[in-house]
């Protein structure tokens, strides 16, 4: 226990925690949406995120930026990031939909037991992971990201210093989340999602196209994961074929922490988990960082499995 580190670095730890937590929250939305509708933990979602990070590398590579290029001007960097976010979101969304169509849908047709879904999810996750590890894809190597945003802090009030990437991460994540919340609660498509989450068969009888709603849910989760992938990989500075694994577990923990199936819970859970993890790493040492979120998950599942805000998508409860 090292309280000294915690108090000395409190401001910095809080900012990093919030930035990291926003990424967790974005990825957690994918878990929560799919769980809310299908009661399924989509293990492959961590690989959907991983594909997003590679999509960013590819598109930047096509435009002539790689790990060795120098830092572009700010306006160009912003443009590049925007392009990468759109492309990564599309790739991730596509991968997520591909998983749904090729792996989960045939199981639903056969009314397979939950265990079969779970095994398929693991299998699909493994296929995506190992596909990226193949010699002609990434060959299990670590791939560096081109430098984008300047690292000097742009906001500095007292001890609170925020660098451009952290600011961008938090702002973009909040914008994405609020638009998703609006989409699910206020639009016609969103009503379909909430209806299927509440009672799939009744919704189908009322004329909701269940298959299309499920596909839409996977697409939405994928879009969020793609944007999160660009933000996260700019922070880590590299990507690898297995980069999604721990992030996936953490994002899932965040979803459970907030109440899985609950969109606002994902935001709350993500930010809280980011903070807990950073404070915990300062207290117990950084080598325990990955273990902390995991212990949070176990403790939570044992004592309050419905999370902080309760399980619900919109007002639906199963």
């Amino acid at each position: 226990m090292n309280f000294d580190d915690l108090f000395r670095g409190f401001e910095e730890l809080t900012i990093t925690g919030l930035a990291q937590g926003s990424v967790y929250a974005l990825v957690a939305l994918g878990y929560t949406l799919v769980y809310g509708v299908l009661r399924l933990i989509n293990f492959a979602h961590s690989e959907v995120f991983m594909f997003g990070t590679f999509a960013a590398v590819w598109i930047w590579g096509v435009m002539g930026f790689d790990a060795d290029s120098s830092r572009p001007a700010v306006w160009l960097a912003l443009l590049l990031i925007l392009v990468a976010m759109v492309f990564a979101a599309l790739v991730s969304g596509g991968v997520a939909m591909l998983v749904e169509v090729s792996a989960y849908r045939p199981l639903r047709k056969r009314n397979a037991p939950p265990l079969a879904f779970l095994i398929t999810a693991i299998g699909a996750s493994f296929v995506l992971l190992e596909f990226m590890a193949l010699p002609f894809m990434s060959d299990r190597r670590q791939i560096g990201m081109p430098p984008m945003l300047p690292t000097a802090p742009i906001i500095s009030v007292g001890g609170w210093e925020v660098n451009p990437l952290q600011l961008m991460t938090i702002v973009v994540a909040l914008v994405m989340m609020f638009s998703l919340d609006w989409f699910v609660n206020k639009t016609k498509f969103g009503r379909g999602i909430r209806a299927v989450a509440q009672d799939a068969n009744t919704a189908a009888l009322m004329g909701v196209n269940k298959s299309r709603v499920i596909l839409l849910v996977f697409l939405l989760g994928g879009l969020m994961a793609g944007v999160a992938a660009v933000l996260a990989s700019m922070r880590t500075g590299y990507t690898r074929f297995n980069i999604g694994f721990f992030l996936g577990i953490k994002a899932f923990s965040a979803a459970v922490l907030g109440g899985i199936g609950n969109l606002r819970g994902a935001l709350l859970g993500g930010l809280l988990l980011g903070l807990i993890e950073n404070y915990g790493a300062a207290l117990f040492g950084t080598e325990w960082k990955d273990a902390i979120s995991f212990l949070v998950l176990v403790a939570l599942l044992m004592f309050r499995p419905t999370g902080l805000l309760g399980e619900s998508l919109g007002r639906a409860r199963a």
Partner: protein
Amino acid sequence: MTSAQNWWKRTSNTVGSAWRGMPKWVRILATLLFVAFLYILPNKEFYEYLNIPGVWIPLYTTGVEFPSALFFATWMILLTLGLNIVCGYAGLLDLGFFGFFAVGAYTVALLTSPDSKLITEYHWLESPWPWLVTVPIAVSLALLSGVLLGWPTLRLRGDYLAIVTLGFAEVIRIIARNQDWILNGDRGITRVGHPPGKWSDGKAIFGILDTRPYYWLGLTLIILVIFVSRNLVRSRVGRAWIAIREDEDAAELMGVPTFKFKLWAFAMGASIGGLSGTLWAGQNSFVNSSTFSLENSILVLAALLLGGAGSIGGAILGGFLVVYVPEWLRSLPFLPESIDVNKYRYLVFGIILVVMMIFKPGGIWPNRRRVEEYKDRAKEVAVGVV
């Protein structure tokens, strides 16, 4: 349903009922003959004596020696048999199963290696212990770790259980890699003890050059484990497991103490996994943290589901195929050098998991009762609701 599937179903049904229709003494005799055949399988002299080398050469592996390939298959089969109890009988998806293998392997390594830190740094032991003495210790420690992992996590439902065991195994591996106070991280533990015994000419039976004795030992352990699983699943415990697998709530309402029996399944599976670890460590004589990656846990699961969860024959077949087929492919002469089978292995197993769950969820050699369960569920699909 394709015609190939129909053909397979008809053939396997005919073979199955013909086998069950035979008198008991024929079945026992055939089984004994088959076991004897398995024991002499790796002996070169056997084929020379029978004078049929040409027929057997295609089955040989050259990348790894044939007895070694067989030995790899034996410890994998032990693992699938262990997971079969947890996942096949009790229906608990444990994604950290390889962790128990690690517990077994590390225990043996720590107690039998002269390089172990227990001896060189902490002086808890005077000298390394013999392999045979450490096996019961390793198995009990694996059992204990199964109970310790199961106690908090088995209150969770299926999908939560999967993610918790998965994360748990990964965290343990990272701790084993980063902390080197006892397990020595990635450098690992070398010079792990071998099983005891000497040939009449004074050479050790379990040496480095000849893998056949390890294979025989593994085969013997497999036969032992088969007896244990068969008797367990036909007892009260086994009936409770199957009830839990089919409907946990209903089982609880009928008076089955589900938590207790789930813990039992975890402990039994863990101890068999640990046993496999002791065997592997005894042959490999080197243990480090990178052996216990997530990929291996998934590999065991893929093997079990490929063969058929809930059926002993399926577990054995799956474990054998998953190890032997890649080794065999590697030794095919017409496969170009540039294609490294190992790089594609896990991808293929991932695809197998997905495809099997869609087309043949019971596995190649399914448990008959499970097949009926799947059929029953497929009938319940409401029309138009997909």
